């Protein structure tokens, strides 16, 4: 019986051990073609190790990974032809110019120089990098370098693009630029697997989000699913002191769906209607006459997501990860 179109990425029990440390622990992942999946997790969760295994840069200790049906260990070349990995640190020769980097990569891909130049120029234009393409990469800003790096990844028109923390370390404007470029790529039909620490990024770009911590899958779902579980926006009211906290809590509880965090003197109230809810809460607080440090509208953070889905803060679990059977 023939299998349907192979998944763009499929892993079973993918594991990577470094001595006693289990970086990736029996991970099962599936990315359908022409969708975007985000691996969301804190630093050290194993996201980078996972995608490097998928991109054939690291050999798995156990388990399998397939890209477009090709096994990453057995058919590395076929995988490399379909995939492009863009890492957190631009993988470019920093002594060459952006254009020289792209031409070299196109030539290494097998194109002759004339075609290589055409490909380079076209990509540079597409990523709006033409104006600094003639400058040595080492002199570019982080955002510019990231753009050239992204262009370099696309030289061989991969069907699967893997972005490892694409906007970490970038200023907000550069981040928006990267997001809009990525969206453009997705619109053209590229399958995308990205890793990130930022829930907003996963939310903005991904169809499905996989939450990872300590190398293990913690939760999975669409952005909407996760948000429903985590709770969307909320209003945080921070009392000035413990006594004020108690008074506020007693005053607000009857009328609102409050959650309390005594250690930070914070009362949280869901705010699906954003500004309107903010106004209602502020009015209620004002009516109590209790002085407050802060009333603010907040979005759920990665910490919130973890808390809600695992019951722990992301790094609270310090017990050593169990070794899976060899």
């Amino acid at each position, binding site marked *: 019986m023939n299998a349907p179109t192979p998944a763009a990425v499929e892993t079973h029990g993918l594991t990577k051990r470094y001595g006693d440390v289990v970086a990736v622990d029996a991970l099962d992942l599936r990315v359908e073609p022409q969708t975007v999946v985000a691996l969301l997790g804190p630093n050290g969760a194993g996201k980078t190790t996972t995608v490097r295994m998928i*991109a*054939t*840069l*690291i*050999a798995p200790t156990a388990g399998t990974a397939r890209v477009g049906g090709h096994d990453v260990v057995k058919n590395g*070349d076929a995988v*490399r*032809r379909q*995939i*492009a*990995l863009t*890492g957190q*640190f*631009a*993988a*470019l*020769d*920093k*002594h*060459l110019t952006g254009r*020289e980097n792209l031409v*070299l*990569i196109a*030539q*290494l*891909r*097998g*194109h*002759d120089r004339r*075609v290589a130049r*055409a*490909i380079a120029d*076209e990509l540079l*234009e*597409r990523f709006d990098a033409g104006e600094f393409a003639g400058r*040595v990469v080492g002199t570019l800003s982080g955002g510019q370098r990231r753009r050239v790096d992204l262009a*370099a990844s696309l030289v*061989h*028109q991969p069907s699967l693009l893997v972005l490892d923390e694409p906007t970490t370390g970038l200023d907000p404007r550069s981040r928006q630029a990267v997001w809009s470029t990525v969206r*453009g790529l997705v*619109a*053209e039909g590229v399958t995308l697997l990205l890793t990130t620490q930022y829930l907003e990024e996963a939310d903005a770009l991904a169809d499905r989000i996989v939450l990872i911590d300590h190398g293990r899958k913690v939760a999975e779902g669409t952005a909407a699913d996760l948000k429903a579980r985590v709770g969307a926006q909320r209003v945080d009211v921070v009392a000035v002191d413990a006594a004020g906290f108690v008074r506020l809590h007693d005053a607000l509880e009857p009328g609102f769906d409050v959650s309390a965090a005594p250690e930070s003197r914070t009362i949280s109230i869901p705010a699906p209607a954003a500004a309107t809810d903010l106004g209602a809460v502020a009015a209620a607080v004002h009516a109590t006459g209790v002085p407050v440090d802060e009333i603010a509208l907040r979005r759920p953070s990665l910490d919130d997501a973890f808390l809600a889905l695992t019951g722990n803060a992301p790094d609270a679990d310090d017990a050593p990860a169990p070794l899976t059977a060899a």
Partner: protein
Amino acid sequence: MSTTTVHPAPPQRRPFLREVRETLLLAGRSLRTIPRVPERLIDVTFQPVIFMVLFLYVFGSAIDVPGMSYIDFLLPGLIAQQIAFSVIGAGTATASDMAEGVVDRFRSLPIARLSVVTGQVLGQYAEALLGVAVVATLGLILGWTPDMSLGDVVVLLAVVLYALFAFMWAGVLLGMAFKSPDAVQGTGFAVMLPLSFMAGTFVPIAGMALIPRTIAEWNPISALVAAIRELTQGTHTTGSWPLEHPIAGTLIWMTLLLIACVPLAVRRFRRITAN
């Protein structure tokens, strides 16, 4: 939105030709960056000049070599030293490449894994050859008078090219082993400087005290110096077997170096890339 032109697929090439092409492309990339990295440019231009001036004009007047002018004695030593020092340059360039992400980029391309290493070696080779050419040319300008037949020239080129080839692989291995360019430079200099001095480079070996003389007699660099000296001046050095048969000695040493370094370098690269 701009549309993507679909470019023709790259032409199929036979595997060996493909690897040669890849090696040449990567070597070219290495060479193109020399003028842009001041330290590397200095290595091939400034440093040999400094050494030459130092020994010719500062120390040279105090060193007496029976039977020949000091410059004729010195140049073979300087050439050999340039060759030996190129290990450090190759190691540093390799280490800094490995430290950056750019090697990852090459590894993620469907090119032969070996091409990354051979490209490095070839690029460094060309760069080191440039350094040797600078030394030789400068020597000629300053009064070096080699006395060689055409046969001697051919053999000299062969010896120099072979020795350089072996040292390049040693340098690339060093770079992969140490991973940090600073570590390579530090260790490299700490080892190469005394080793290249205790090789009959600047002063005749015969005049050294027992311990340095023994080291010098069996030092592979000494054989190289003696070989170049014999070919350019017809000088015969006395001492250990490699010194008295320097060309054969050099060839043996360099071959041993290659046998030791090449498999290790390839294996190390595989290990680095598998991880």
